[in-house]
């Protein structure tokens, strides 16, 4: 596996770990903002090789987990209206809404299909011209361009039965919101690799200019993550915060401008509600009026119901790094991957699911 195996080099990893141990003096808390990082950190046992001075905390980087309860309920209402086929990434199926989930709705006979990409959803719309196919758009800047591309394709293909419900979110506004959340204590950010592929290192520049907090863009292999941790520790020890790129084979300064162009053609920024954080100004993406014919929120009546958050679930505090799953009384007792209470236990990228699997 080219461009990937090289970064699992144990000799190189050991050398980086040794350097981290030499460099790190002050106790620091580093937040990994990406769910795929959380999983990789666990899978590779990275916490166990770090000095006691370094604490890694997981952030709001699992798209399914940060999706607000009202959006989950809207997905379920859309599935119930009897005129739609819901196409969704698998992770959303078991997320508990207020009293139901997409999986439960599917068992009741509603038309819900799991897809791996929007291309599959478009194909469903093409094959079933009499059925309205609604794709549930959840994800960060990495996913949003792929969904925008599907809307452009739908227009080119002349599809009148393809729709998107958008609950997309953007990372930099969330970083800023975290800085202004009481009880959140972070000394540096491990920035998400593939969001950065799209927005580039420059995408974080306004955030960095404002807060001067150590930042490092990181890849997903062990040496990528270790190198980024070392970079953050060095920045902190030398009091020289910077916006560093520790994943240069995938991330450039400017990012993928073509993907951003496609995204901006279809979407425009809007305020969005995040589970655990609340409404963050300018952190969401809504479909522009020109593409309103594809906007499920405009084309379908979606009854707004009283949302009920999962009782006793501490996902909100986990998503902001205030506590770890071990501090949630339901963890492993009532809440397990087989019978999850909150979204952080449902998604494979969720912090609770990662703790359950690897701790």
């Amino acid at each position, binding site marked *: 596996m080219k461009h990937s195996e090289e970064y699992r080099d144990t000799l190189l990893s050991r050398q980086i770990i040794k350097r981290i141990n030499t460099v790190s003096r002050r106790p620091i808390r580093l937040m990994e903002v990406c769910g795929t990082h959380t999983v990789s950190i666990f899978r590779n046992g990275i916490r166990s090789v770090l000095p006691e001075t370094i604490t890694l905390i997981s952030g709001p980087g699992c798209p399914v987990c940060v999706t607000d309860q009202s959006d989950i309920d809207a997905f379920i209402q859309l599935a119930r209206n009897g005129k739609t086929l819901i196409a969704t990434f698998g992770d959303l199926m078991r997320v508990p809404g207020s009293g139901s989930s997409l999986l439960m709705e599917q068992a009741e006979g509603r038309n819900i299909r799991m897809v791996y990409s929007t291309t599959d959803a478009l194909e469903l719309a093409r094959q079933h011209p009499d059925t309205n196919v609604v794709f549930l758009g959840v994800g960060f800047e990495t996913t949003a361009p792929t969904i925008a591309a599907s809307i452009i394709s739908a227009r080119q293909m002349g599809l009148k039965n393809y729709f998107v419900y958008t609950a997309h979110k953007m990372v930099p506004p969330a970083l800023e919101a975290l800085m202004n959340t009481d009880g959140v204590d972070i000394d540096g950010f491990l920035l998400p*690799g593939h969001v950065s592929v799209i927005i580039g290192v420059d995408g974080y520049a306004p955030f960095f200019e404002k807060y001067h907090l150590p930042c490092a863009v990181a890849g997903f292999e062990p040496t990528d993550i270790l190198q980024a941790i070392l970079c953050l520790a060095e920045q902190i020890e030398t009091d020289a915060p910077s916006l560093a790129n520790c994943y240069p084979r995938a991330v450039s300064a400017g990012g993928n401008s073509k993907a951003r162009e496609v995204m901006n053609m279809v979407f425009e920024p809007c305020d969005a509600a995040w589970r655990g954080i609340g409404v963050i100004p300018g952190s969401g993406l809504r479909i522009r009026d020109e593409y309103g014919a594809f906007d499920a929120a405009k084309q379908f009546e979606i009854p707004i119901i009283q949302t009920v958050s999962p009782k006793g679930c501490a996902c909100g505090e986990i998503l902001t790094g205030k506590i770890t799953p071990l501090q949630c009384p339901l963890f492993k007792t009532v809440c397990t991957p087989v019978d999850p209470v909150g979204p952080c236990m449902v998604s494979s990228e969720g912090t609770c699911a990662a703790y359950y699997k690897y701790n």
Partner: protein
Amino acid sequence: MCLAIPSKIVSIEGNTAIIDVDGVRRQASLMLLDDIKTGDYVIVHAGYAIHKLDEASALESLELLREAFAQAGD
């Protein structure tokens, strides 16, 4: 949701490529990337190629990294 392993482009037809991900063949859309040719390594997310790896510079930065740590005698 992120597939971290880069995939090799096996063939291209129009805006769609056949990719090889660790021995498994899949389709990927090229709508979000320009100038892709057979043999390129790309990062694919949710069925779309989103980044082309520059082989030469990837190798170079890996070498630099190895050297940096080897030299320090770590």
